[in-house]
């Protein structure tokens, strides 16, 4: 490690920790958010924070491939996916409130428990890691688990998909903080899968709506029972 690098660790490390804290905060905000449009904006914001932290890691550690990774995040998660989601929402005209299967305070409490679990699980990894971002592995895992919780407590299709994408965000964050990102070919593959998945789901929304007159997953359960 060069002397200049050691010198820069404190400041950049602090900024990255700040980013991680914001990520977690956004995770909770999404968990408590009732409106679909705000949910998309929060998702976009999370993408932006992810982009910032990846960019800072890339610059301070001179990992050039992380620059590409950051660019990918910017294009995909801050621009493309929120745009597609907004368009879908407009065309489906679902701006109403989101129903949750659990009430929000309970969900938040469960979320706090998940964060504690995530930090415990991540502790041995953080000890071993040599990256400047090692303190954030616990937060990344917490983001994944919060998105998971959001996915199982929402009953409508669109929030479930946003939760799915937020989970992907958490995983990317985990990859950057534990190992400075996966090899480029893998990251490209993952991005491609997410993109294709999103397009398929967009088509799906229309089909579901046509068949059930709603995007509420609970209607499906009823259709099955008949």
């Amino acid at each position: 490690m060069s002397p200049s690098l050691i010198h820069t660790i404190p400041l950049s490390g602090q900024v990255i920790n700040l980013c991680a804290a914001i990520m977690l905060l956004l995770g909770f905000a999404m968990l408590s958010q009732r409106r679909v449009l705000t949910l998309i904006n929060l998702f976009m914001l999370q993408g932006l924070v992810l982009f910032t932290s990846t960019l800072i890691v890339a610059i301070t550690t001179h990992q050039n491939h992380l620059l590409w990774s950051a660019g990918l995040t910017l294009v995909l998660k801050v621009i493309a996916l929120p745009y597609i989601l907004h368009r879908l929402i407009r065309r489906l005209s679902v701006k109403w409130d989101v129903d949750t299967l659990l009430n929000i305070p309970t969900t938040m409490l469960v979320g706090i428990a998940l964060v504690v679990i995530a930090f415990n699980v991540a502790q041995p990894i953080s000890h071993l890691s040599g990256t400047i971002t090692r303190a954030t592995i616990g937060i990344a895992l917490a983001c994944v688990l919060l998105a998971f919780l959001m996915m199982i407590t929402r009953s409508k299709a669109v929030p479930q998909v946003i939760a799915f994408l937020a989970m992907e965000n958490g995983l990317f964050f985990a990859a950057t903080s534990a190992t400075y990102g996966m090899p480029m070919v893998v990251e490209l593959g993952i991005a491609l899968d997410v993109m294709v998945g999103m397009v398929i789901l967009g088509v799906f929304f229309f089909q579901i709506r046509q068949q059930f007159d709603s995007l509420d997953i609970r209607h499906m359960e009823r259709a099955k029972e008949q």
Partner: protein
Amino acid sequence: MIELALVLTIPLASSVLLALFGHRRGAAELNSAGSLLTLVAAGMLTVRVIGHGPMILFDQQFFVDPLNVFLIALTALVGFTTSLFSRPYMRVEHDHGRLSAARLRLYHSMFQMFMCTMLVALSTNNLGILWVAMEAATLTTVLLVALYRTPASLEAAWKYFILCGVGIAQALFGTILIYFAAERVLGHDGGALLWTHLDAVKTQLEPTVLSLAFVFVIVGYGTKTGLVPLHNWLPDAHAEGPTPVSAVLSGLLLNVALYAIIRCKVLVDGALHTHFAGNLMMAFGLLTVVVPAFYLSRTKDVKRLFGYSSIEHMGLITFAFGMGGPVASFAGLLHMTVHSLTKSAIFFAVGHASQMAGTQIIDDIKGLIKRSPTIGWGLMLGTLAILGMPPFGVFTSEFMILTTAIKHYPWATPILLTALGVAFASMFGKVQGMVFGEPTVKPLSHNPALLPVFVHLGLVLMLGLWIPPYLAEWYRQAAKFIG
């Protein structure tokens, strides 16, 4: 080298061609031709590997060894026979007005794409690419399951997407953890996710990280394998998609997901020197054998019935690999083969049976054997084979698994036997009712292609009586390597 390139590019090229021309006449023939070419290429690859030993190709991103070459050959074979079966099956569906020409195009194109993703997953050396290919396989099959666009099929596809999406995200976290452990040994370049590199340094990998990674991997890929309690999507997806898709889901995709778990198990075993991964697999496996056995008797839909049966067999295979050792791993590999062949044969017969009856409800299908003896016998023999009757190959592998269990884990044997007994009682009764009795079913508008059913059952019978020496050697090598 050229062989593997062909195995991977033929399905991809067929998929693109079918996306353009899949609505024309002759698309089904093109589909079969593409699958046949893939099978030929896979055969050449197999011959090559037998002759020259394992290969590492394309900048080390792909490799072929005794473990995956037999799965590649099996995948190509079942893919080809399924495409033969799907030709008349999809014509009948088209005649019944359940599918338009545009849907058929989607079906043919996605079928080939699905084959391509599975072959990539099997042959890649990069654990990250393995993940990407598994996710791509999920996406293509989501489209295939939702092909009919009925409320039930949309629900099944949605459930499949969400559950497997969540599951496979866990597997990605597991992969990240493996990469993290590997990076400390191998350094930060592309090599730290290559399985062959990882295998070479597996004893130096950090045990705590690897054990944590394996938990995520088994939960993640286990969702796709259909391990209980993550199996919920499987019966729905099998029941609501077109039958050729059920056949390849059951016969191939579940194997590929299990293959991913086995690959990771080899690494984890090397790093831990304990039986942790094996114990975890045994626990999941045992649960997965027992739970579906009790769903079988309550199932009314014939494709759901065989979906649950697939879950049960995956549990048995997972249990076998969990026990480990040369005999159990050999039995696991053999069971993977015979289950694929038998289950896809059964789905071929079931597909035509439900078309003849116009329903998938078991109680409404009667007297198959009088209207079409081949379908009736195909279903009956297939069911006997999958239930583990001698002299079929399933009996051989189940016998080996059970004897190993008696020797090393005697407490597990009564549990396994009870589950298998319950499964036998509930399935045999149901299938008997469908095959015999006064016919309620009508003949089909196109001649069914039942040759694949009997080819598969013939192979399963052969494997029960006599395993060709080179195949046995092959299983032995792969089993030794799994440990």
